[in-house]
């Protein structure tokens, strides 16, 4: 990420260098007996932390408007703290006010700019949240994301399902699950290679997450199995959604030589996520035993 910001790094280095040269030019070095260790420690730490922020911004954010605001705000802060630290070592002549202005003015300006950037970040995050709907529900933990499909994995599903079950029980609403299982995925991998299997999985997950409603979340439960949690959904609605997904999947399947999917829906009546997920195994087995792509009638 930092490669996008080369000129910014260069600019900040030049700015700090200018500050240093200016300070050296106008002032004279203090004697070592005049150093105040506590001040140096305090101001040094502030400077280091501000530099750390700058580094994090550069290394984690793509180029863009919000990044610019965040970056220039922090740069002004760093500049101000840097001069602050320098005057512990350098004494300026009494009549020369420029240095003290340079020291105190950039900090509040930088804070304002940084705050404006943070507001922008907040708005951006809301936009990203909208983008993430269907892939995420109430809980965020980037370590649980499956790196291939960019969906959440089984642990996440477990946590979300447990919470939804408790909520739905207390409010007497119905919670449904959709289970999607790829038929003979091992065979597909064997014939076409694991690389083709990986491509298929990522295309499939892209399709599935785009076809769900905003309140739903889909997770990769196992290597070849996906589970979608549909909060506040009646079995009839779930059935319609399953039918819709099947149609979408046929398009994906007809595009190439890809394996079929079995879709099964079930209503959660269990009181724990563990039991509900065990029930999904049974549901998918029954769906496979019956004709493929058929929903259980008692749903």
């Amino acid at each position, binding site marked *: 990420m930092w490669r996008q910001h080369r000129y910014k790094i260069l600019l900040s280095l030049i700015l700090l260098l200018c500050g240093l040269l200016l300070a050296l030019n106008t002032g004279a070095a203090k004697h070592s007996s005049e150093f105040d260790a506590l001040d140096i420690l305090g101001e040094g730490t502030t400077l280091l932390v501000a530099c750390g922020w700058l580094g994090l911004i550069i290394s984690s954010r793509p180029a863009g408007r919000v990044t610019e605001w965040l970056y220039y705000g922090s740069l002004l802060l760093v500049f101000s703290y840097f001069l602050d630290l320098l005057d512990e070592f350098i004494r300026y002549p009494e009549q020369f006010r420029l240095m003290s202005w340079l020291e105190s003015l950039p900090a509040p300006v930088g804070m304002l700019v940084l705050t404006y950037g943070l507001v922008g970040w907040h708005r951006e995050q809301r936009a990203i949240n909208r983008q993430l709907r269907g892939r995420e529900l109430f809980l965020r933990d980037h*370590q649980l994301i499956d790196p291939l499909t960019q969906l959440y994995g*089984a642990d996440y599903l477990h946590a979300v399902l447990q919470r939804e079950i408790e909520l739905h029980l207390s409010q007497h609403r119905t919670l449904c699950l959709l289970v999607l299982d790829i038929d003979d995925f091992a065979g597909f991998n*064997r014939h076409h290679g*694991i690389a083709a299997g990986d491509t298929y999985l990522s295309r499939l997950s892209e399709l599935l997450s785009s076809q769900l409603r905003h309140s739903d979340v889909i997770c990769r439960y*196992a*290597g070849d199995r996906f589970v979608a949690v549909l909060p506040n959904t009646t079995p009839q609605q779930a059935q319609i959604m399953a039918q819709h997904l099947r149609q979408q999947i046929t398009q994906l399947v007809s595009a190439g030589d890809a394996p079929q999917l079995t879709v099964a829906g079930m209503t959660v009546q269990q009181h724990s996520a563990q039991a509900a997920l065990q029930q999904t195994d049974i549901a998918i087995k029954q769906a496979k035993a019956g004709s493929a792509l058929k929903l259980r009638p008692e749903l």
Partner: protein
Amino acid sequence: MSQRHFGYQDKILLLQHGCSELLALAQRRGALLHKLLSGTGIFEQDLHKPLGRLHYSDWLTLLKNCQQQLNSPELPYLLGNALLNSRYISLCQSLHYAQNLRQALSQLYYFRHQLFPCFYARLYRQQHGIVIEIKPAMGLANQDGFMLGLLFALILNLIKQQLGTVNGISLQLQHDASAMQQQFFGVEVSFNQAADSLCIPFSLWQQPFADANVEQLSAKIRSCRQLNRMLDKQRALPELICRLQQRALPQLLSQEQVAAMLGLSSSSLKRQLSQHQTHFAALVDSVRRDAARHLLQQGQYSNRQLASRLGYSDEHNFRRAFKRWTGVIPSSFKDLFNTH
């Protein structure tokens, strides 16, 4: 002792035997190649050389890098599957052409230094089937979970492909439960067991394989033999020591005796074992632990008989050691086992 052993620093693995597959899998999941290879002696340009080799310690570093960069529990299972169907590994291809599971597994065991030099196995018979107990043959630097997953995935996938079913097979693992594993193996898995083992019912051992082919098999075995010229049939040092001690029971071998048997000096034995993150006393202890467990499972031995078979001076010492290994005294272990 004619068998040679390899050092921790010998290049005993082929890049084609897993390394390039693992890198491809990890890269498709967003890992960066230079970060995966950092700390290993593998160079990017060597990856496509057909006979490029690597150290086992490099392989372990590679696995560690993978886990640091990716949180993908399916990796060992996918890799096992990829190895099994790889066109570049004649050992894996030969498994498909075997007559039956017995022949395939003995083939895998005979040439295991080409693919899994880190494990050795012991077989014993139980009521319903034959148990394959997998033991680490060398220091695995916390990657034993991954390697076991890889090995079991390979074997189970082979059975699934050739016999069409894995019914009746059960898997025992030493480490803790994790939600994903049950899903991937597709068989009954129990955790926190005394050993890592796979129990295969008698009926599956002799059932003919779907792709059994005598000519293809002998061709593949020939190319395995040719590969032996590059990858010597060597065993890891800890495995050799365990085998020697196993054979010598109830007599206990000293470090000097074993060193002499292996043609090493005592200090170099010590140094090489420390490269495997183990030491002599721990190996002897593990051999006695496994032997005690086997004897207890086999039949009705008294503690005094067990103590004398395992080289303990009296039964009190044996009971104390057993409590240390398993946390229970021998008699309650027997009960535990008999109720199952």
